[in-house]
């Protein structure tokens, strides 16, 4: 396993090099900000036609993880689709690819700010998920504790290498974006430095999940 193990509010979690979170005890896999259908949304709005492979690529990587870990529950932490129309416009091949994944296990779509009402593609939809001791929601609540969230697409720079990363402190974990066409927000951005405690870690994604002190 290429992950980094850590405790959060008593739960033993693993940050995977792929950017997904694994909760072994619950057999729960969590990914954030898939942004499926991003290229479709872009051209729909009069922009250029990006290579339309990001949905396939994101789903292939997700399917690989599921095949290895065999989770009982998959949680998509919001912004799973680039917008509502993008979820409706998903090509048939990718719809069935997704449908196959959501079968035979519990699948939860958490609402994001891009896709407040996830489409009817199987699975349950909820605003937040409480699974003691943790709470899963899209955007971090500064007052919360034991919280897993996404939204910010954090990335961090070490040795002139910039990579998507998890951010972790005593109260919360923020996941990197799992989608193929996603950018990142530097960990030094005030939005993140004000949210995370002083001794926070950034866990870099890559061949090996690498913890470093969060660059501020």
């Amino acid at each position, binding site marked *: 396993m290429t992950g980094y193990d850590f405790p959060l509010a008593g739960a033993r979690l693993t940050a995977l090099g792929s950017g997904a979170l694994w909760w072994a005890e619950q057999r729960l896999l969590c990914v954030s900000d898939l942004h499926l259908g991003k290229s479709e949304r872009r051209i*729909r709005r009069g922009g*250029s036609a990006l*290579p339309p492979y990001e949905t396939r690529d994101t789903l292939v990587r997700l399917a690989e993880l599921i095949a290895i870990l065999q989770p009982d529950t998959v949680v998509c932490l919001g912004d799973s689709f680039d917008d509502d129309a993008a979820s409706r416009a998903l090509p048939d091949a990718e719809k069935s690819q997704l449908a196959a994944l959501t079968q035979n296990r519990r699948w939860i779509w958490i609402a994001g700010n891009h896709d407040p009402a996830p489409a009817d593609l199987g699975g349950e939809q909820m605003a937040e998920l409480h699974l003691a001791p943790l709470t899963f929601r899209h955007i971090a609540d500064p007052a919360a504790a034991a919280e897993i969230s996404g939204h910010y697409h954090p990335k961090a720079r070490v040795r002139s290498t910039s990579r998507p990363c998890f951010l972790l402190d005593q109260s919360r974990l923020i996941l990197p974006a799992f989608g193929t066409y996603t*950018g*990142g*927000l530097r960990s030094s951005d005030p939005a993140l430095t004000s949210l995370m405690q002083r001794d926070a870690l950034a866990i870099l994604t890559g061949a090996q999940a690498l913890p470093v002190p969060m660059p501020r």
Partner: protein
Amino acid sequence: MSDTAPALPEAIENWFAARGWTIHPHQHAMLERAGAPCTLLIAPTGGGKTMAGFLPTLAELADGTHDGLHTLYISPLKALAADIKRNLRAPVEEIGLPIRIDDRTGDTPASRKKRQRADPPHILLTTPESLALLTSYEDAARTFKGLRRVVVDEIHALAESKRGDQLMLALARLQTLCPDLRRVGLSATVDDPQAIAGYLARHPDPCDIVLADPGPAPDIRMLETEAAPPWAGGGAAYAIPAVMEQIKAHRTTLIFHNTRAQAEIFFHNLWLANEDALPIGIHHGSLDRVQRERVEAAMVRGELRAIVCTGSLDLGIDWGDVDLVIQIGAPKNVKRLVQRIGRANHRYNAPSKALLVPANRFEVVECRAALEAVRENDLDGAPRGPGPRDVLCQHILIAACAGPFDAGELYAEMTQAGAYAGLTRPEFDACLTFCATGGYALKAYDQWQRLLQRPDGKWQLRDPRAAQRIRMNLGTIQDADLIKVRLMRSRGGKPLGEVEEAFAATLTTGDTFLIGGQTVRYEGLREMTVEVTRNPGKKPKIAVFSGSKFATSTQLSARILAMFKQDSWPALPRHTADWLELQREVSELPRAGRLLIESFPHDSREHICAYGFAGRNAQQTLGLLLTKRMEELGLDPLGFVATDYATLIWGLEEVTDPAPLLDPETLRDGLEGWLAGNAVMKRAFRGAATIAGLIERNTPGARKNGRQATFSSDILYDTLRKYDPDHLLMDITREEALRGLVDFGRIEEMLERTRGRITLRRLERISPLAAPLLLEVGKVPVKGAAEEKLLQQEAAALMRQSGLDQLPQ
């Protein structure tokens, strides 16, 4: 108004006579050919070239009967357009000709631009980008109605770039709107006038070439200094006192640099040594427009004794009485050197005076070689190959902005541009498909095409609002992302210029850097602007401007290798000749027909140095290819650095047999395979994808809050490589790899020259010729197994230092 040679109207003749000026023979020749469909004038700088281009226009417009636009003048520089407006308006007003002249560039206010489209002047002075934008409007036909002549200034510079390709496609468009349009090109001295003529003319029209008297040979030499140049680097700080003496001894001196950063540093040092407080200015493309204009105005008024500058002053702006040109750093390219030298003695039929200042020891050799090439009038040039298709894609989008078009007609029009004469219909159709649907192997988004084919067969934009996005992203100039620098506090913050975003990202509060000749302190980044305060006295960090990094030309490299064959070097300064002799003693000097590789331990790492003499970009690529191969062979390379003549690689293992590394097939495979992950290739892709309209650098309202909105173009590249490797943009990227940044063509050339003849020299320590490379900046780390290992070590160290590894797990 006629298409035959117009006699010069009396008023104009008299104006010349009143000044005691005679019309030059080449100016007469241009008048005689006024009716020809295409004429190319080749004249040295200051030979009255621009006037030669405009005389036929003035003659045709003198009777005041022409309605609307008559002549379009296109220059590569905004400043040049403004300068010509000034220089042309003066005689027109003095003679009393009924001619309206105006300029139109990115700096022109929107209200004036709008007026120009509705009511164009007789003569419009503009740039390739502004012209392309003009042709993208629905009312283009009305704007250009009556257009007779187009004058392309400095066409030798445009013909080397995608800006020129874009311009020629725009001219093909104009030619359709105005079938009688006549073309004139004005060029500095070039190696192959015929190639420029073919580039300018409507294919397959003929193009007359008029050669002006080249004037007396220039007086050019190397600057003698007390101190020897340093071993490496590009600052030439050692030459400051000698340059200062030269400034004092001349009326006005232009001091050219190859990069903006070097110009800044040199200016800073010159200013510190300027005890007499002589008026000296600085001018380069990263400075704020207001600052540049102030320097230009002072220059025109003759108030400056010297101006430190870069390529932004390369082209023919009339700066008044320059009597000395100094080139700091090796010129890299003989043609450009000759053009720069021509800037001295602009108005006199006297030899131009120029001094070369090598920035380091190796450049002494290169300057010597360049001097000889100038003396023998041996200019360098390389054929450019067919017109790039990313520019073609952009032009298709521009055509769509102007209104529905017929694909067959557009194809026929584009192949009238010389660079695209060989374009096949399937190639064109692939570009059209790319613009319409993205052209992906996976047929997606049927209902959301960018271009739609209408029932009548014509193509149009699906969403008319797309026109705004396309216009916002028009152009082929690929500057690194720049962000503005402003002074804090002073009335809204005085703008100073721009720096690269990547440079700004390395700054932390308190850091100092040079811009516009002053040292400033970084205070913070606010709304995509770097805020600084003045901070005199403190030693600055250096601003890293992109600027162009020219590679030494093939011809100049060949001359250097030829010089190395000499038994001794009486023409070189003692310090440099001694250095070469020492190299010959402990190792050997590189030869044209052989590839010399030195291998030696240094600083507890193994090193190899490959003297390919293929130019900076190709040597850089060679470094990437060799280290990739070394990684595969378990030689654990750690990094490399490249100059115009060699690549130095360091790693953990000694290389005992370099032949397998340099096998041509292996290198070519490397280029293909290494397409996978390399940053240089991704940059080439990024350029092509931006020009072709896939990546939009500017979107309405998006620039302000860039967070999360944008993702790296590298991801698009990786995605295409994985799912659609034969996509048009991947094909264009591979084509780009043969030139420019990757420059694999020069590696091929080197392999052809050396044909597998490799000399490996195992040395006990670093050689005299290799030593300067260790001092070079721009070392490239190898992101291989060694890097991953080091990253893990670094992460562990950071955790230890911060005590975070002690936290309970």
